[in-house]
């Protein structure tokens, strides 16, 4: 045990001398937080739209104005020939086309049905659904305004009863999407730094040949493992703390819950990621292999963690698969603690799962590492 501090010292010395790695470890997380934060939490807006107003009446202009004022659509093109609309969508210049038919205002006056056509580039199902939702909402409020006029113009008292929802939003009143995504990014950074870098660090020594020197040195296997793992754990926690401070300052994310509880969960989670790093480094010969293997693990873990894509939307089979993913629990814990202020009693299931995964993966990796060293 006395020898561990020397190994630690060596590791930190090595890290200090590797300027590029240092920059990547400490600057990249901030950079990723910036880029990922903006991209992942971007709302659908600035949808390029072509308008084909065949009616050209006050009513049609009212509709166009409403679409424009919603702030989601960028009315880039106005086209007078309906037959030219395919050009805009085929070339990708616009992804939505709105066609207001020729006799809309006349029909409205006579209370006859009119159809407004919306053509949506359906390639991106998410954007299309949202764009359709926005535009239908705009038209619906236009319709209910017309219905209101109908009621006002009705000869006798019309007997109508309407339901209206009075919606209150909890935890994130302004529906700021970054409040939800940025904590997820922090988890991603912690996972990457600890799993990937620890995997690479060990294989590197094997590739250069310095691992043999370490093995013949009078240190025990477990000392070597501890000495190798602790620096990455410290760096991981440091990166997490740094990301948290940055997220608070830059994105103004809420920190409602108990930070101590959050860091406690993070430490439990570290056993999983460091275990994966150790396992990868024990199972590979070259850094390239280590890199591929860690990416392989990471990609699946990320994808099935609910970080970017909500688990509830996945097919049932894939949803069950996510229970095997330790990242899933930690992403959830992070969000629930930071945004909703959940306490341990709401999260103990996640805690148990994380502890089991951590203990299992870590001890498996240690056994594998030790047998490889012989």
């Amino acid at each position, binding site marked *: 045990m006395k020898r561990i501090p020397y190994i630690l010292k060596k590791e930190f010395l090595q890290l200090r001398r*590797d300027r*590029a*790695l240092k920059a*990547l470890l400490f600057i*990249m997380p901030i950079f990723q937080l910036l*880029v990922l934060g*903006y*991209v992942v939490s*971007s*709302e659908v807006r600035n*949808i390029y739209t072509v308008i084909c107003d065949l009616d050209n009446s006050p009513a049609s202009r009212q509709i166009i104005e409403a679409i424009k004022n919603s702030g989601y659509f960028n009315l880039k093109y106005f086209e007078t020939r309906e037959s030219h609309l395919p050009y805009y969508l085929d*070339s990708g210049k616009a992804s939505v086309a709105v066609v207001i038919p020729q006799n809309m205002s006349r029909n409205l006056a006579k*209370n*006859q049905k*009119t*159809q407004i*056509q919306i*053509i*949506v580039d*359906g*390639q*991106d*199902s998410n*954007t299309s*659904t949202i764009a359709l939702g926005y*535009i*239908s*909402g705009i*038209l*619906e409020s*236009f*319709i*209910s305004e*017309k219905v209101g006029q109908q*009621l006002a113009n009705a000869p006798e008292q*019309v007997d*109508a009863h309407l339901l209206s*929802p*009075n*919606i209150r*939003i*909890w*935890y*994130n009143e302004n*529906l700021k999407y970054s409040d*939800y995504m940025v904590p997820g990014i922090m988890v991603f950074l912690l996972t990457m730094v600890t799993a990937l870098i620890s995997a690479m660090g060990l294989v*590197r020594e094997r590739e*250069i040949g310095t691992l043999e020197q370490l093995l013949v040195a009078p240190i025990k296997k477990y000392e070597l493992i501890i000495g190798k793992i602790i620096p990455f754990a410290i760096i991981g926690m440091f990166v997490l703390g740094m990301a948290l401070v940055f997220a608070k300052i830059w994105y103004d994310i809420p920190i409602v819950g108990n930070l101590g509880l959050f860091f406690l969960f993070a430490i439990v989670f570290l056993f999983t990621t460091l275990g994966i790093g150790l396992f990868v480094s024990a199972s590979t010969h*070259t*850094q*390239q292999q280590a890199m*591929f293997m860690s990416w392989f693990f990471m*990609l*699946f873990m990320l*994808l099935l963690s609910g970080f970017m894509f*909500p688990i*509830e939307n996945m097919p049932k089979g*894939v949803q069950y698969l996510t229970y095997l993913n330790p990242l899933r629990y930690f992403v959830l814990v992070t969000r629930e603690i930071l945004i*909703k202020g959940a306490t341990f009693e*709401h999260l103990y299931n996640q805690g148990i799962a994380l502890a089991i995964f951590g203990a299992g993966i870590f001890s498996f990796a240690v056994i594998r590492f030790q047998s490889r060293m012989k």
Partner: protein
Amino acid sequence: MKPRVIPLMHKEFIHIIRDPRSLILIFLWPLLMILLYGHAITFDIKEINLGLVDYDRSPQSRELFMRLISSGYFKISAHLENRSQIEEALLDRRVLAAIIIPQGYAKSVATQFKTEVQVIVDGSNANTATVAINYLKTFMISYSLQMNAQVLRPPLQVEPRIWYNPNLSSTNFIVPGLVAVIMMMICALLTSVTIVRERETGTMEQILVSPIRSIEIIIGKITPYVLLALLDAAMVIAFGRFAFSVPFRGSVLLLFVMLIAFVFASLSVGVFISARAKSQQVAMMASMVITMLPSILLSGFIYRISSLPTVLQIISYIVPAKYFLVIIRGIMLKGIGLDYLYQPPLFLLAFGTLLLAISVKRFKTRLEG
């Protein structure tokens, strides 16, 4: 020049074949990614878990619940006694939203012009919350119109038409995009790491002292990967086409030609990185920052470019995957031809040539200095 390049390529091929683990990953990884991405990325929210607090307990309130369920968008996950239980249900994540039916609801619906129903939504995931709110609003409007069908006649109808992907399947969107991302990753990562590995293990000096010019080294190094990448792309596209039945409306030949331009551009990124990086670790991290992240985040693969902040939109112009995404989606989903697609490949070729020229120069100075 030619004869010296061939042995170099041969050597590189041997390197690739002797490392079966990497080889398996090169071919297995894309397939697994497609399998998972194709299934896991779906944006549409199917059912929203609702909690109910019914203070009225009337046939009318039950009617409202039945309508909510039969609309297909909601699932009643919890019947709550009173409003103080809502917080617990939201914190336990049993429900995403709770509806509170006030006492006297039945009477109000029969006599009043407007009846308010309170809804509490968990806003922590803004995206899901927005969708839930939209569903609830739409439901209330259509339920109101149904209840008053005799007196209210909406004069306008919205007729949506969806082109290129009428079922709004996420798979059709994601799978062609994946081809771009996988290609970029494999091309840039592999090439950048192999060159740096030679430098790290010291074999690069041996190649450099041999009478081969630096352009030949680069050509010899990347050609095997061009072939591998093309094979990989063909496999991924075929898999997407037949296993996920992603439509292929345009010309296969055109796509293949464009693919070469893209592989060229992405390999040149790898060469560019390797001309600079000193260790594999650095090369790998740099490849990730320079290729993978932009290809996933700033290419339009999942996130629309025009929704991003302006600075990121400007950066997206130098992301090769962005151009290839336009090409592959255009050909596969829209079925458009060269008349709409001549610009992106020109950019890719220019981009690749520029990067290669810089890298060759860099290699030369290393050799001489």
